[in-house]
């Protein structure tokens, strides 16, 4: 007998199909085998392939072989997935455990008739209609729980079109726990990923490119925030958790996909950190080195691996043969780490003006907040006995 979960999934699938059928009576176009640069009104790729003719991208059609995981299909993730779909990405893997709600309609992408559907199913239906060439895989679960985390890791490490690791993971989640879970997975799997975020007051955002061992991971420092120039005292949080604007989310999604494309197709400079302050139209960029004392042991392992690598092997993006040498005003800061310059990194971060840590953690973390309760003493009781004691209180 099918489990309730399976049945629920089936119902969701059918609902998504029904909604897709109701909302979209236009027949789907045929799949296209090879991207053509022919400029005819029926070719959805002609303007993208024009990037090649203009010398911006050397091998645009390579995008058909690439796979990207988008974690979180909300205000940023859904727009990110749509952009990648329209760009003709080979494969998209979508993760979310939320449903579409009418309260989401201040954001882009989802439509009122999709309310009640799971976000991944609703998104897959829309995206598949926009571009049937994209292979789309969906996972409707919370990646932070013990049951799902391993499934999440497996789907990333075997998610490409050739059953290898995906080319890039994009974090479009809205909470610290999920970001940390993605960070944990990507450090373990040595998987490159972009973190993205929009502040709870909706007027700032950022993206951050994380190459395990080479750039700072999400656990290397407390969360970074772009200074919003709002006096904390005037910031009212009474009565609401979070605000959101389609503009800020769309801008952050645009930054995210733009830098993803540059990384995936090897053109331009990939920003390691790009912030956005909406109130002042301020866009700080910087590069962040990993923290040698990072709490994440896999981050430290990746750092050691990176240090052991010969110089000039890792240059973040593919370097084409005629690439110019990296010059001095390379402010996004990929620098060749020279083994002869013993640059002792202190755990203190060098942040660009306008970006700060959300909070500080004392270096000497051994003195706890004043406590009169002391520490728990080792208990003679077993876990079962303690559970029973708690239950009978």
């Amino acid at each position: 007998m099918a489990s309730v979960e399976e049945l629920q999934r089936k119902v969701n699938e059918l609902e998504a199909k029904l909604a897709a059928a109701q909302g979209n009576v236009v027949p789907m176009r045929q799949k296209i085998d090879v991207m053509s640069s022919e400029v005819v009104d029926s070719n959805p790729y002609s303007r993208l392939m024009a990037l090649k003719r203009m010398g911006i991208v050397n091998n645009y059609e390579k995008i058909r072989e690439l796979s990207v995981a988008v974690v979180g299909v909300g205000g940023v993730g859904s727009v990110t997935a749509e952009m990648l779909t329209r760009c003709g990405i080979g494969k998209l893997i979508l993760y979310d455990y939320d449903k579409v709600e009418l309260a989401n309609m201040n954001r882009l992408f989802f439509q009122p008739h999709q309310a009640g559907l799971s976000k991944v199913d609703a998104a897959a239906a829309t995206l598949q209609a926009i571009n049937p060439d994209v292979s789309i895989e969906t996972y409707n679960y919370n990646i932070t729980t013990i049951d799902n985390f391993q499934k999440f890791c497996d789907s990333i490490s075997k998610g490409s079109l050739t059953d290898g690791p995906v080319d890039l993971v994009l974090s479009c989640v809205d909470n610290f726990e999920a970001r940390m879970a993605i960070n944990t997975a990507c450090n373990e799997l040595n998987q490159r990923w972009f973190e993205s975020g929009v502040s709870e007051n909706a007027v700032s955002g950022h993206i951050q490119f994380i190459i395990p061992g080479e750039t700072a991971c999400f656990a290397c420092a407390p969360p970074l925030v772009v200074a919003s120039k709002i006096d904390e005292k005037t910031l009212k949080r009474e009565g609401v958790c979070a605000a959101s604007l389609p503009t800020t989310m769309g801008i952050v999604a645009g930054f995210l996909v733009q830098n993803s494309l540059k990384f995936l197709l090897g053109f331009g400079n990939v920003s390691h950190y790009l912030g956005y302050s909406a109130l002042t139209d301020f866009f700080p960029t910087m590069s962040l080195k990993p923290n040698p004392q990072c709490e994440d042991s896999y981050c430290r392992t990746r750092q050691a691996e990176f240090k052991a690598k010969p110089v000039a092997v890792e240059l973040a993006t593919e370097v084409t043969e005629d690439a110019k040498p990296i010059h001095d005003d390379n402010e996004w800061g990929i620098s060749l780490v020279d083994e002869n310059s013993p640059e002792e990194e202190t755990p203190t971060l060098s942040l660009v003006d306008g970006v700060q840590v959300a909070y500080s953690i004392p270096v000497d973390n051994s003195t706890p907040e004043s406590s009169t309760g002391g520490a728990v003493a080792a208990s003679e009781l077993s876990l079962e006995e303690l559970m029973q004691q708690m239950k009978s209180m």
Partner: protein
Amino acid sequence: MVDEGTRKTLSSIPLLKTKAGPRDKELWTTRLKEEYQALIKYVQNNKEADNDWFRLESDKTGTKWFGKCWYIHNLLKYEFDLEFDIPITYPTTAPELALPGLDGKTAKMYRGGKICLTDHFKPLWARNVPRFGIAHAMALGLGPWLAVEIPDLIEKGVVKYQEKSEEAK
């Protein structure tokens, strides 16, 4: 900063020692024992202070927690189901406490009835990894949340008093 009452409550809860999450097998069992010890002590403290306000239990793995919390307003007791999962990133990240019965009834919640925490919570939690546990999350997160939100929700008529139907409990 955190108010004096919360600070005092917080400081009387025993601190935990083991930095281990659900993926750490044996160390997680050690951590779970500490969690239960701290919770038991906290409930005892609450009873002594005549401020008993929640019960919690977990499944065998200690990753799924459920229970009840209640709030007394004008001599009436309002009770709510409470649940949360322990994320694999615990205790670096705090559990997200949820009151599913109030989902959609207040703006001070995220999806699924997860309560909205104050700006003080995350920095204080981060500075106290791994010493803070579930009991601290309850005292620092849910306690103050109930004290602010429930009277407001009762006043707005969103939360209504329900007679106990089952007397024997």
